[in-house]
């Protein structure tokens, strides 16, 4: 073999990249690839990788069989003799893929230049702690990707043993915390709510009592205050800002 492989073995991003290398090095016509020649070179390369005990990715092997199949088709007399335009050249699909891939590879090189030009600049990175309550979902989500959410979920799951993932029934599920939570739901849109509104939907006595304790607790911790517009009027619960 006169071919000297002065190539970094790990340089190729994939089989298409490797084929483009052969085409370029040997100055082959990409529209008329000598398939036997290139298949041979390709297989030699894989062999060499194998000899050197390098792992060969599945795609490289897949491409080898693809090349051999094209080569076989090219040998069929039907193709060799036909001038007919409607018999498709078995190489076409590969050529199209190579050309498309080549375009992005070239663009990647252009981007490398941009990266070089810009790598030394650092943009302002402020330490921000401003928080405004009146912003909507869209404005927060702007900085979060679904990937972040999924990753966060996975991290949570990773922290707990499977068996501990709860499902279902608890004996007594209502706590002061729950009802504090429940009260807060009224404060999403408004800062005030009538006591009667809060208790209207509560059917269970236990829940009612716990809700009441929660209100007292919240007054004590100054999360809310309570007042009456007039004697015997409904209580108004107001969130303390």
């Amino acid at each position, binding site marked *: 073999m006169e071919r000297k492989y002065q190539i970094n073995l790990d*340089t190729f*991003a994939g089989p298409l990249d490797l084929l483009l290398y052969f085409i370029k090095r040997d100055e082959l016509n990409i529209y008329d690839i000598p398939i036997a020649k290139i298949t041979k070179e390709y297989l030699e390369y894989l062999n060499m990788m194998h000899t050197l005990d390098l792992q060969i990715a*599945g795609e490289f092997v897949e491409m080898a069989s693809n090349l051999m199949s094209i080569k076989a088709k090219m040998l069929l007399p039907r193709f060799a003799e036909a001038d007919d335009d409607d018999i498709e050249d078995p190489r076409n699909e590969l050529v199209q893929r190579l050309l498309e891939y080549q375009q992005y590879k070239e663009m990647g090189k252009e981007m490398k230049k941009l990266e070089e030009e810009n790598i030394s600049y650092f943009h302002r990175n402020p330490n921000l702690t401003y928080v405004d309550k009146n912003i909507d979902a869209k404005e927060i989500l702007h900085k979060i990707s679904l*990937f972040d959410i999924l990753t966060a979920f996975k991290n949570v799951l990773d922290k707990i043993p499977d068996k501990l993932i709860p499902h279902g029934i608890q004996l007594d599920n209502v706590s002061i915390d729950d009802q504090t939570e429940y009260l807060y739901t009224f404060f999403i849109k408004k800062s005030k709510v009538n006591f009667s509104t809060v208790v209207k939907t509560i059917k269970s006595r236990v829940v009612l009592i716990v809700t009441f304790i929660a209100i007292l607790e919240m007054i004590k911790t100054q999360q809310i205050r309570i007042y009456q517009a007039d004697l015997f009027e409904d209580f108004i619960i107001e969130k303390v800002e």
Partner: protein
Amino acid sequence: MKTIDINAKIVEAILVASDEAITQGKLDKCLDEGHQIDLDNTIKYLNNFYEKADRSFFIMKVAGGYLLATHKDYEKFIRKFINRSGRIRLSYAALETLAIISYKQPITHPEIERIRGVNSGGVISTLMERNLVTVKGRANSPGRPLLYATTEDFLKYFGLNSSSDLPRLKELDEIIHGKNNISQKTAEPNPIREEKTDNDQ
């Protein structure tokens, strides 16, 4: 205007480019052997310059060192700008809770806390305030705790029709471990191509 001291410019550049407060110790680590900068003096020098030049920012001393900050007068504009551009980030606790609610909805508060292992009331109400999470009825379990779910806004933002369109854990695995979506016919494990820095081509 005179050329400013190179040391002051180094400190200034770090202040601009990093969100972490600068301290003498951290500064020392950035400098070559023998190169010394007195941070406190440099800060004084810079602040003096900013004041004389009537800039809208100054260097603030915070718990962990020095940070670039803007004067109070501009707070109004900045707030508006930041809110518009969505610079407000969720805390990690909030993100985690949001993730649990997204994937397990509808879910009760106690259940969320059992998964997270910590009290989550504050976080849930933050998420509700932000309109990311909403109450979707009550569970049938005793006490009938509230059920939380993500809002329409949340799904709409990510272009999802329903919460079942969320990425699946399996897909995360595929992304992280580079498992192939293309059929992998051959048995050879695929070495994940890692970032090589710079080679020819």
